[in-house]
């Protein structure tokens, strides 16, 4: 009854799960597409109010962390335990940095009275309300996934430290890594849709 030896099967299961996550965000992207069609001008205006520097910084942070997660798998396979631990800790740090940036960004928006049900959004043009509504829902849900991803990476880090994740059995790390790449991938779509909309 122990199937942990069938790495291919475990991977199939993980990919199916990732697929369902993409559909989850897909529903939100459908909303985005329809509303962008309805309120193109307001969306462009909304995009100008977001901080592109922080957005670009966060994109770079996630890309780097994706690389370090992939590198940690290679390190585990080469039995470089120290390296793997360092790389995973660094990836978790990147995730934390991403969240700090997000916090600063949201804080600034709140300061400008741009948050769900705020006076500015309720009285402003409807397209602006929808743009920021979607912005908070999508980036909020994404941030939640970043937190889940960081927990999985931390769990893998524990596994590497106590030897449960090693050069023969690294399914936990590999699947956590896959999840982290998904988090990264979704951001790659979110970033242009909100920050670079022209």
């Amino acid at each position, binding site marked *: *009854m122990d*199937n942990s030896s069938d790495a291919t*099967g475990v991977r*199939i*299961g993980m990919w*199916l799960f990732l697929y369902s996550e993409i*559909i989850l965000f*897909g529903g939100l992207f459908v909303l985005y597409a*329809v509303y962008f069609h309805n309120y193109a001008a307001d969306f462009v205006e909304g995009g100008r109010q977001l901080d592109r520097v922080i957005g670009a910084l966060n994109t770079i942070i996630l890309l780097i962390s994706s690389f370090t997660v992939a590198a940690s798998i290679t390190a585990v396979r080469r039995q470089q335990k120290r390296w793997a631990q360092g790389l995973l800790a660094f990836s978790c740090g990147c995730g934390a940095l991403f969240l700090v940036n997000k916090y600063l960004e949201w804080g600034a928006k709140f300061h400008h009275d741009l948050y*769900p049900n705020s006076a500015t959004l309720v009285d402003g043009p409807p397209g602006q309300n929808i743009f920021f509504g979607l912005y908070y829902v999508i980036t909020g849900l994404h941030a939640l996934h970043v937190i889940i991803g960081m927990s999985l990476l931390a769990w893998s880090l524990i596994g590497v430290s106590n030897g449960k994740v090693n050069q023969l059995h690294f399914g936990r790390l590999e699947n956590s890594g896959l999840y982290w790449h998904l988090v990264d991938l979704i951001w790659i779509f979110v970033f242009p849709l909100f920050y670079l909309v022209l």
Partner: protein
Amino acid sequence: MSATPSFFQTPSPPGLTGIKAWLLTHDHKRLGLMYLWAVLFWFVVALTVGFLIRIELMSMGRTIMSAEVYNSAFTLHGVIMIFLFVIPGIPAIFGNFFLPIQLGTDDVFFPRLNLLSWYLYMIGGLLALISLFTAGGFPDTGWTFYVPFSVGTNNNVSLTVFAAFILGMSSMLTGLNFITTVHRMRIKTMGWMQIPLFTWSLYATAWVQLLATPVISITLVLVIFERFFQIGLFDPDRGGDPILYQHLFWMYSHPAVYVMILPGMGVISEIIPTFSRKAIFGYKAIVASSLGIAVAGSLVWAHHMYTSGMSDVAVFVFSLLTFLVAIPTAVKVFSWVSTLYRASIEMTPPLLYGLIFIYLFSVGGLTGLVLGAAGTDIHVHDTHFVVAHFHFTMFGGTGFAFFAALHYWWPKMFGVMYNFKRAYLAATLATVGFMFHYVPMFILGLKGMPRRYYDYLPQFSQGNSLAAVGGLLLFSGIILMLVNLVLSLRSRQVAAANPWGGCTLEWSVPSPPPLHNFVSEPRVMAYPYDFSEIIARESQGK
């Protein structure tokens, strides 16, 4: 009977005794039975609520409940029936129990995930129960949770919607588990065209579960967000579009209809050949139509929205696609009937339920075309005609397939045989009641009685009182059926390993099956419905 201990008797490892041997089990058979009792509990609850709704409508004005309670009652009936009975029913109980056995293996691919799915199911049910008695009471929105009402009403929508979210996750993980199991755990000697049709239908269903469920998840999350943060994504005053909610909702909920019916069709595809002692007509066509229904069924969601204000082009396209779904469905019905033609039919309770299924489901399917055609739909949209139609498919279809499965696999699951006479009586009672219950609703709907209304005009009173009488017969028939099954556990009339003469792998193992399912290496036949050996053995016996 072989002397191998069944999975009931196999001693548990230390630390996993007593109730823990069930609550912490990874065994797919035990999980299947745990689902069985939970699902039956919810089924009886929702059945009773449905019965009370009918009593309320029996006569004009207030009969037994207030209008507010009535609104919550039909929502409760819908939510429980859909999310806690019809969707999980066949896959979670019979799928869990028999999919691994039919594939010649000892468990599903992710046994621990399977246990998690069961807990998610139980938590979802518990949350639904809690929402009944807290903060404003159970929602009065109908099971569709349409905005803007679901966002504005004071009832406990958030918790109920969250329960549905959890239940969706449980169903999705079960689907994920089944797909992986079919691909990776199938015994090496079994090719794709040697898989029994029940397992094939579960495989097709699992893909729909996996593809569609995340869409409802995100939609339900958005309803919760709207209630807490008033974002306005579906509020026309704030630039939102309420129709978009309906699109997202049905993008899952229509495919979910096929999650409900496909496993039922799989059950019938097992039962018909077994009691015909004849290879099923068009095995490959049935497999292809299962997949065809899964694909085409995912593209027809907007036929629930003809009157919501879509463009005419969209109505036309969705109407056409809806008609296309009828083709693979008809392929199945014709294949079952052709299998029965010139067969040596042995009448048993499971077959009777199966035959009732074919009849009721065909009526449900054909009236579906009345609704799928945009022109006629405008006339009967949101009337009792719709109520009758989907009860013919969901209850007459999936419900009776579920009963057929119960009677077909009961001896295998528990090793006991039930009383045939009572089973026949219950089936007849339920079917006669069913017809008197739902046929008047077709007529009421055509005459214009809207669904979900608390009260009605005098011209509708005859039909409604007739439906109440039918409801009583139906209700007592089903209770009799369940009582008969439960009584068999007490009388303990031992069932043979293969009481029906079936030839899929579950009939080659003892009843109930041993812990690891197979005593010896399972022997896969070149064609899963080859009855020549069974017939030879039977004729020798005579």
